[in-house]
């Protein structure tokens, strides 16, 4: 518990990840699933970024070129990785959203359970 409180940033990130994960897993509504996916990803990125943070350090943009001191700057690697990750998650969002639009135009609902029910009943038509 003490460790959790000291690592509050990471703990919050993990809680966000788990909320997003369960939203993605349990919600039957496609849009909610997609938002859950985004929350899951941002939780992960927060987790990664909070690892690079050092108390009292600055962003890794060099101000004085002649005197570079390691301890002045935060770890730049997590930022670079997160930047890559954000692009991946926006691409995934776009694809899943367009799938949602397609599903809606076909089945007229966003609820996956209903979609399955309709698909099962109209199965024979499509062959």
């Amino acid at each position, binding site marked *: 518990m003490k460790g959790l409180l000291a690592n*509050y*940033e990471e703990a*919050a990130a993990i*809680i*966000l990840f788990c*909320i*997003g994960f*369960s*939203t993605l897993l349990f*919600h*039957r*509504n496609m*849009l*909610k699933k*997609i*938002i*859950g996916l*985004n*929350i899951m990803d*941002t*939780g992960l*990125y*927060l987790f990664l*970024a*909070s690892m*690079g*943070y050092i108390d009292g*350090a*600055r*962003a890794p*943009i060099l101000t004085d070129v002649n005197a570079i001191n390691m301890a002045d700057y*935060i770890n730049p690697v*997590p*930022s670079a990785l*997160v*930047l890559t990750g*954000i*692009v991946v998650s*926006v691409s995934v*969002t*776009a694809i899943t*959203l367009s799938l*949602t*639009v397609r599903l*809606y135009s076909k089945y007229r*609902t*966003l*609820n996956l*359970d*209903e979609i399955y029910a309709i698909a099962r009943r109209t199965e024979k038509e499509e062959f």
Partner: protein
Amino acid sequence: METFKIILLLMLIGCAICVSLTKRLLTAVIIFMCYSLIMAVVWILLESPDLGITEAAVGAGVSGILLLVTLKKINKTETDSEESEEEQKKKAGDGDETR
């Protein structure tokens, strides 16, 4: 500063929970955009301004726009007073979680 950060983190968690509990999809999308903005601020506080800019532009901007366009496309955000109560309920019901 640390208190501010903790408050922001709590708000993030609150937003995340609200998204999965709220009934209306439009509300969920708007809460998600707020979530992204708060996240951008958190990243500025974590001394990663690159991520702050990107998250504000992508999470709140582009993802938000795409979500809203999708919502609009599937015709869920309209509120029309001429419509009967029943119709509206049906509408709200099928866009949202059926428990």
